[in-house]
């Protein structure tokens, strides 16, 4: 590969001279030669900006600059911004404003901002939007990033922690000392400074690298594999194929484990895993992959869910008779009598809506690192996962390793949105290769490989029928959905149920019929994606409701309010709605958006639309049969009494659980938030938590934490009672003091009591666990999916501009009113809402993974699969309505997923209001709108067009 070249450059003020290969990028130079891992690798195509560094003061994508080309220049990485341990004011501003979630894009974002303020100390909002267009944030913290940069000067010379929190963000009246306050993110300082280590940032002695060979064919039989050439290549330590992996299949739903670690005889999509290599470096591993010779017998393939259903379609899992006709999951639900309901209606309308295959596209690629310990044998697995517990179980089961011998550690995770909620081939291959070689094995996907691994949103073809009375009351709903599931099950069984189960939670539906059909196709498998299964059916529902309101001459808000869910309701599909302020979200959004003045009254090209949504606050049942409580927590009080450590395996993937959970602990314990240390997500330190999916952590993890804190509190109150000579029941704790409720001036220092308790009886530990009520759900097949202790509700109104020349849609401003119960942290809460809105905008207007006729992906990169940038960010007003959930900790429920659900329908409705074009197929592209406008202009259709 040519000789090494000496490169001299200045990095963060230090002169460096390094010998690098001619093809070494500046990114690899800083990450590998200098171990400055704050510079992230997100796309390797100069698209995401996570690898931004400053070169002679200017931002560049370090993945696209050769190290030799940087010779002689001055390079600044994120690690160079803080001076003598003090964060740069910009970094402090990011932390304080909650301008980050997963933190993976944050270093690049901050460096781009640094270049801006260096050239213009007081940038305008427009400057910021211009300059940050090349830094993608999938959590979409954009609104807060703008605020942080605008205010950076306020943080000059100010220590981070003494600035007041942001009380103006509190929407709700609560008398809490910690809950409800926008405290500093626990992981904020590490993420803004580049200190946070993500899986691919970990360096272990002797570490080697693995890569996977994928099928180039959408459907084929493997005739033979010859690995001789690969094994001979110097630097290659192991090569494995389907013959070297267990017969055991893995997956997500126990009823449908249908994947082998590596293909045994059949490949079912372009990208299916065929072989894996471990080598001394990534280059060698990739070269070895090219030397593996696979002989395929290519088979006919099917790429469309409805085609897959036809007689004679190629069978994708012929070995299993359960999958005859390529049907992976069939749901047949019938609640009430829809025929009767439709007969009672004054208007019945049925329309077909079509969703798109969208991809979570977290900026951090999947990564796994496995190491077998010399004693034991015991395995340590670091993985970019949302569900460490399921990962531990699945690795144990699939590779036949005692679960007690596996330690799973979740380092910082750079976003997931569902795609990191399952065990990946990287996890399994890394474990196997590490065992074979006796070396730690690091494996990671490239951006392109991520797209092929997929597990994104199912494309759903939805035939929806609604019956309405003249006054807008819903009499019946019938929904038939065909889901394109791709080649394997993943989360798909649950998706197929969710697509039906969540429709009756928002509006009262007396009669409801749902037929779901999840099909196998020869495309990458679909999985769980924020709002699991629900956003597309909700898009269909909210669109059709608006269409029918227009038919009846009713205001869209009136129709929604008439049917709105109320607290304490059991839905037609046996879901128990606990707290519900949906009506309040509707009334307040209508008022705040200026609906009455705007709906139907804006100039042509401008429109307003409403959509509603909501989601479960944690699934009522686990994915596999298990008697464990769903969330478990331990709190250990330090012997000094000055701090506690919260041991919990809840997975913070950017949503902020490492901040919200210690807040709940601090509130219940009556101590300040900054006295809580986190010991999260290491299976040797923290008891089982099912993970971050189904928006479960705040409610379930929070309940477990609160219970553990109560346990500790009761122990301390007994000690304090003895010291103060009073009944412990008369005491309470707050702000680091234990005192008599009726006489707050009579009290004692919390730490003093805690230290005394330790001196008396050794470690003070509290434990808590939470399991949802076991009575949830109806007694019918699939009756568990959609159950939850509590549901969120929201109303979203947006205004859009449609460029009548080009069809280009801009979302200008929007309001979101959410009922998520008590808001534990307003900064992370509104961050979630804003991020969900922006992700929803992407899903509605931009995103669609496109496959070619041979099953390859036409846009497997962030260059052609476009996600929203800071320029797509509208003005967002997010408000939490007053609400209290009796089953949640301090009254809290979920926000992270429900916030995305209403966006798609609302934008579709607003586009229709703006230009009279009704697009029923996602995404709503300029092409579809302009086509509709042209039909309008030609007078071939009425002023209102369906596209």
């Amino acid at each position, binding site marked *: 590969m040519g000789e090494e070249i000496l490169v001299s450059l200045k990095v963060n003020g230090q002169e460096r001279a390094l010998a690098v290969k001619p093809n070494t990028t500046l990114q690899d130079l800083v990450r590998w030669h200098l171990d400055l891992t704050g510079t992230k690798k997100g796309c390797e*195509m*100069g698209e995401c*900006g996570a690898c931004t560094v400053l070169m002679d003061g200017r931002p560049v994508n370090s*993945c696209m600059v050769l190290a030799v080309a940087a010779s002689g220049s001055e390079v600044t990485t994120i690690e160079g911004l803080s001076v003598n341990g003090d964060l740069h004011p910009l970094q402090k501003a990011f932390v304080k404003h909650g301008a980050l979630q997963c933190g993976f894009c944050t270093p690049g974002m901050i460096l781009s901002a640094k270049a801006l303020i260096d050239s213009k100390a007081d940038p305008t909002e427009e400057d910021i939007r211009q300059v940050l267009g090349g830094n993608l944030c999938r959590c979409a913290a954009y609104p807060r990033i703008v605020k942080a940069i605008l205010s950076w000067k306020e943080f000059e010379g100010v220590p981070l922690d003494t600035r007041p929190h942001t009380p103006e963000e509190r929407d709700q009246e609560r008398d809490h000392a910690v809950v409800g306050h926008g405290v500093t993110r626990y992981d904020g300082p590490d993420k803004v400074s580049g200190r946070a280590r993500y899986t691919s940032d970990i360096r272990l002695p002797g570490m080697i690298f693995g890569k996977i060979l*994928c099928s180039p064919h959408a459907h084929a039989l493997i005739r033979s594999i010859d690995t001789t050439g690969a094994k001979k290549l110097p630097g290659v330590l192991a090569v494995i194929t389907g013959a070297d992996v267990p017969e055991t299949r893995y997956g997500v739903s126990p009823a449908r484990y249908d994947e082998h670690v590596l293909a045994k005889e059949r490949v079912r999509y372009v990208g299916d895993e065929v072989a894996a290599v471990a080598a001394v470096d990534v280059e060698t591993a*990739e070269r070895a992959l090219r030397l593996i010779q696979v002989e395929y017998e290519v088979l006919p393939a099917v790429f469309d869910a409805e085609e897959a259903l036809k007689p004679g379609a190629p069978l994708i899992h012929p070995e299993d008779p359960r999958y005859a006709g390529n049907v992976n999951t069939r749901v047949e639900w019938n609640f009430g009598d829809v025929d009767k309901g439709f007969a009672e209606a004054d208007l019945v309308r049925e329309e077909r809506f079509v969703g798109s295959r969208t991809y979570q596209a977290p900026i951090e690629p999947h990564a796994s690192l496995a190491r077998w310990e010399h004693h034991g044998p015991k395995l340590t697995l670091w993985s970019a996962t949302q569900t460490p517990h399921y990962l531990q179980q699945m690795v144990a089961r699939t590779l036949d390793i005692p679960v007690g011998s596996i330690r799973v550690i979740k380092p910082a995770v750079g976003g997931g949105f569902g795609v990191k909620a399952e065990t990946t081939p990287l996890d399994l291959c890394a474990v196997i290769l590490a065992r074979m070689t006796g070396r730690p094995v690091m494996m990671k996907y490239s951006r392109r490989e991520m797209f092929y691994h997929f597990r994104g949103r199912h494309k759903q073809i939805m035939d929806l029928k609604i019956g309405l009375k003249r006054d807008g009351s819903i009499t019946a709903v019938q929904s038939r959905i065909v889901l394109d599931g791709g080649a394997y099950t993943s989360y798909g069984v649950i998706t197929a149920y969710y697509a039906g189960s969540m429709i009756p939670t928002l509006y009262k539906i007396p009669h409801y019929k749902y037929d779901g059909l999840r099909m196998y196709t020869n495309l990458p498998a679909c999985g769980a994606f924020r709002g699991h299964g629900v956003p597309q059916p909700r898009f269909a529902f909210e669109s059709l409701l608006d269409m029918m309101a227009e038919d009846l001459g009713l205001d869209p808000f009136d129709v929604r309010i008439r049917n709105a869910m109320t607290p304490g309701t059991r839905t037609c599909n046996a879901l128990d709605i606990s707290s519900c302020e949906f009506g309040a979200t509707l009334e307040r959004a209508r008022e705040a958006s200026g609906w009455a003045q705007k709906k139907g009254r804006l100039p042509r090209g401008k429109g307003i639309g409403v959509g509603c949504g909501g989601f479960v606050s944690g699934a009522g049942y686990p994915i596999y049969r298990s008697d464990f409580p769903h969330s478990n927590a331990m709190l250990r009080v330090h012997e000094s009494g000055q701090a506690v450590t919260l041991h919990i395996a809840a997975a913070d993937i950017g949503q902020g659980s490492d901040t919200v959970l210690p807040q709940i602990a601090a509130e219940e314990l009556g101590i300040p938030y900054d006295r809580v240390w986190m010991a999260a997500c290491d299976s040797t330190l923290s008891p089982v938590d099912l993970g971050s999916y189904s928006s479960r952590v705040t409610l379930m993890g929070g309940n477990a934490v609160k219970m553990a804190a109560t346990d500790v509190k009761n122990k301390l109150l007994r000690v304090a009672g003895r010291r103060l000579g009073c009944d412990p029941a008369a005491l309470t704790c707050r702000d680091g003091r234990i005192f008599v409720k009726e006489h707050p001036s009579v009290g004692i220092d919390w730490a003093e009591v805690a230290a005394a308790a330790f001196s008396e009886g050794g470690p003070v530990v509290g434990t808590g666990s939470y399991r949802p009520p076991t009575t949830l759900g109806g007694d019918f097949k699939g009756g568990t999916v959609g159950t939850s202790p509590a549901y969120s509700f929201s109303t979203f109104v947006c205004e859009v501009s449609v460029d009548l*020349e080009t069809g280009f849609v801009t979302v200008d401003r929007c309001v979101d009113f959410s009922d998520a119960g008590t808001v534990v942290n307003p900064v992370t809460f509104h961050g979630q809402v804003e991020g969900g809105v922006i992700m929803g905008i992407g899903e509605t207007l931009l995103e669609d993974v496109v496959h070619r006729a041979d099953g390859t992906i036409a846009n497997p990169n962030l260059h052609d699969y*476009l996600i929203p940038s800071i320029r797509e960010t509208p003005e967002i007003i997010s408000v939490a309505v007053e609400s209290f959930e009796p089953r949640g900790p301090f009254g809290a429920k979920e926000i992270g997923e429900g916030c995305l659900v209403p966006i798609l329908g609302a934008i579709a409705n607003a586009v229709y209001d703006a230009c009279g074009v009704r697009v029923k197929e996602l995404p709503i592209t300029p092409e579809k709108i302009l086509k509709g406008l042209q039909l309008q202009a030609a007078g071939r259709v009425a002023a209102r067009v369906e596209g």
Partner: protein
Amino acid sequence: MRAALSRLRVVREPNLAMTARALEESAEGPRPLVPMAGGTDLFVYLNAGALPEQDYLDLWHLDELRGVIDTPGGVRIHALETFANLRRDPLVKRRYPALAEASSWVGARQIQNRATIAGNIANGSPAGDSLPVLLALDARIRLVRFSAPRDVGFDTFYTGYRTSVRHPSELIHSILLPWPLPGTRQYFRKVGTRLAQAISKVVIATTITVQKGRVTRARIALGSVAATVVRVPSAEDALLGEKLTPAAASEAARRLRESIHPIDDIRSTAAHRLRVAGRLVELAVADALR
């Protein structure tokens, strides 16, 4: 799945003369060197595994290829000028506002800090943001090889999809933009899928010269509608001698729709491109009226 940077080999020579000689010598051999400047296009293709194994000739350090120079015949922009520079250059902003505007639409800031005008030309993508502007401005490209330089009109530079008259032994040295005629209005608009950092569905650049109320010269250039960036002479002719009226504009748009044949791809459809391209011509004329 992916060919990596492991295929990359880079050669670097100390100065322009030696670089040009290395290029010329390699052009005769089995592995011709491929010139590389900011690398922003190249790395995209490298990472997508879309390039064969080849060797690259690094130009980034050659300061002889930098500078925006005022000359009697116009402004000479040297090959390695980045879009960040062109976006801000006072001379470019004053005399060729369409080029400054186009430069601000290339990728994002990180890309603009590395991507060069010659790289955009040599890469030859029909979606290259700056290319329609160069066409509309009657740019001339100076090619050099170790033995001799030559100048080529940009309207004859491309011979097909990503192919050009540039011989593998030649480097792009600079671009000459003739002084705009008095009374000339320049227009640029990129229509992409996203506002920031998106490859265009259609990109247009026009220069329209009006003297005594009539159009005396028109250049209408489009990107992303054909295998190369194209000028549309029939639409230009529709404006010549005319007053800038909506009727003249729609006639130009009509002729344009007749003479271009865009395709469907991941970024848009042929039908959409035709419609939008036509409307952009009308908007360009409306802009010239201001």
